[in-house]
């Protein structure tokens, strides 16, 4: 009895996802042009938030490095954009971010708690100022022009990265590898004693999550035409994925997805309707979310669902 229902649920979920994917793939054909641009932004934040959750969700290591990895991708796009075709540039952007993550991870993933948080945030500033110094003193410029492509191209590329990142996160969650990550988050010593290679696991996952952030950066840079270190390494991009993940809830894969999508849309809505008050309104929403939705939107939805389901049972 039990198995068929879960199979049925799975089929429905798959069906819904498939339809959603078709809608997203075809939307540039009929959706208003601005919707496509807005969706690109939403996809970008979903990529950042989900890839942040891939590492920080199970392990509990709060990383404030997304802006650093994103920025590396942006610079990859500026430096290589005129040399290679865009898909290669995106791949290289992701790989450079991964390499950085491996180096940084090897050095610092022995740090825990607040020390790790501080270090990762320091990394953003370190890279910003290093590149600034390099550009001023070695190359004698700070701004770089990035080759641009059409909005639809950017949309499809971002959608591609989005699909890959969600598939990766899904498969990771269900694998032995994901289980090992979870065990690191629960008790690192115990995990090590049961034979999990703790450091290697952490570094490889950190690098994996950095790959997608770098790829997202390489794509988005093409929309900006001109970049300098301050634009590429924008600290806000370190905090937003964390906030979006909290907003959505990190317990389930769709938590960060819903969190990032709703957060981005809400911001766009408020900024255009209330240009002078949106920050205040946004602040209230965040305070409310943190005070009353400890498990995020997804936690709230699940609770509501249960309550409705429970009421039905009481009736019958």
């Amino acid at each position, binding site marked *: 009895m039990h198995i068929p229902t879960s199979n049925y649920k799975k089929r429905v979920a798959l069906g819904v996802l498939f339809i959603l994917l078709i809608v997203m793939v075809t939307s540039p054909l009929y959706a208003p042009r601005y919707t496509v641009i807005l969706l690109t932004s939403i996809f970008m934040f979903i990529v950042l938030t989900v890839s942040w959750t891939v590492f920080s969700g199970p392990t509990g290591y709060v990383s404030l490095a997304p802006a650093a990895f994103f920025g590396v991708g942006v610079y990859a796009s500026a430096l290589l954009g005129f040399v290679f075709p865009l898909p290669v540039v995106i791949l290289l952007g992701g790989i450079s971010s991964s390499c950085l993550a491996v180096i940084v991870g090897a050095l610092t993933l022995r740090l825990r708690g607040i020390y790790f948080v501080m270090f990762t945030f320091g990394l953003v500033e370190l890279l910003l100022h290093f590149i600034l110094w390099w550009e*001023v003193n070695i190359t004698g410029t700070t701004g770089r022009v990035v080759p641009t492509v059409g909005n639809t191209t950017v949309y499809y590329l971002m959608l591609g990265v989005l699909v890959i990142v969600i598939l990766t996160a899904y498969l990771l969650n269900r694998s032995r590898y994901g289980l090992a990550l979870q065990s690191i988050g629960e008790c690192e010593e115990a995990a090590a004693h049961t034979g999990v290679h703790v450091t290697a696991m952490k570094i490889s996952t950190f690098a994996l999550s950095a790959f997608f952030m770098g790829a997202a950066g390489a794509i988005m840079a093409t929309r900006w035409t001109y970049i300098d270190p*301050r634009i590429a390494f924008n600290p806000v991009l370190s905090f937003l994925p964390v906030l979006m993940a909290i907003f959505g809830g990190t317990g389930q894969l769709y938590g960060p997805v819903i969190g990032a999508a709703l957060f981005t849309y809400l911001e766009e809505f408020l900024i255009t309707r209330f240009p002078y008050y949106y920050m205040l309104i946004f602040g209230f929403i965040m305070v409310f979310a943190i005070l009353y939705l400890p498990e995020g939107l997804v936690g709230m939805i699940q609770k509501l669902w249960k309550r409705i389901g429970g009421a039905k049972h009481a009736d019958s």
Partner: protein
Amino acid sequence: MKSKGFMRIFVIAIALFFLTAAPLAAKDKIVIGQAISLSGPQAAGVDISGGKIYELWVHEVNKEGGIFVKEYGKKLPVELKRYDDKTDIGTMTNLLERLILEDKVDFVFPPWGTAFLFAAAPIANKYGYILIGGPGGALKLKELNVPYFFQVLNFSETQGPTLAEIFKEVGVKSVAVAYRGDLHGIEYGSAMVPDFKKRGIEVKLNKSYPPDIKDLSPILKEAQSLGVDAFAAACYPPGGFLFTGQSIELGINFKAFFLTVLPFSPNAYRDNLGVNVVEGVMGGGAWNAKSSPGAKDLVDKFVALFKVEPDYWGGLFYWSSLQHFRKAIEKAGSLDQKKIRDIMANEKFETALGPFWYDKDRYFVNHPGEIGQWQKGVFEVIDPGAKRTAPPLYPKPAWPKKK
């Protein structure tokens, strides 16, 4: 019976909707969109330079009933639709495209700052929207092929040689140059140094500093120990305040003291520090109420609306560019971007600063002045030639002693 009644109401409602919607579609105003930094690090800059000029222009145009557009046979008032880009370039690009695609505004005004102009120019160009540059700009912008972009503000290309000429005229023998480590600093730094050398002025120090620095006294002390006559810094307001404040505190005096960005602001600089403190400080600019009758008119109108004086670098530039733009619309007699663009690119119109036109690269050339100097509370234009409103004050009086 009942459903028939509903049907009737439905049909009437639909008809009414279309009937009332039809007059709305007729043009009754010109909507101009602007994504600009109302919050974040650039917001202070928007407030002291440029941001308010656009508001004043809209206010003044509407006071006269709007812009006459022949195609519609009437005057159309202007509405400024502003969004806040939070000083984030990604947000700015999105909002600019939203204004164009979703809100379908008639025209767009520029965002604030050089980097933002770089990002905005190709977007506006892609949709065939005219973009008249405001605060910001750099030689590098010429590298982009964007026929709908017009550069209004002057920068190192014309200010560097003028400053060097002034230094030569007053007898400066040696100079120390400091520049901020960013596009602005590097462009000015690398432009000023050869200009000085060409005129036989020795550059004894040429140093960059990181944008977020909180202590610039080492550079000032080094310049002092080298015994230079003049100190010239390519800085932004935070650095400008540091250079000024620290040289006052340390009692370091140069015979000439020049900062690119900051002295032009009567509110942020003169009123904060005091008329006697800023006496003799030179800055990028420049114009003042004496530059032309139109300039005086701008100061009066600005003070009447905002109770403060406009900035004496770009204020008159942006104001006149908007007058030029308005005349181009009136001449085109339509809101067609292509027609207006072609008129703007080719025609000379009389504006507050005098005749206004763009060169073949669509750069505005007839600047009201390049270098200003505070003299008795007035930001005097000290360029050699006809634009000068007062001779340069040299040597600059020593900073007042701290009590």
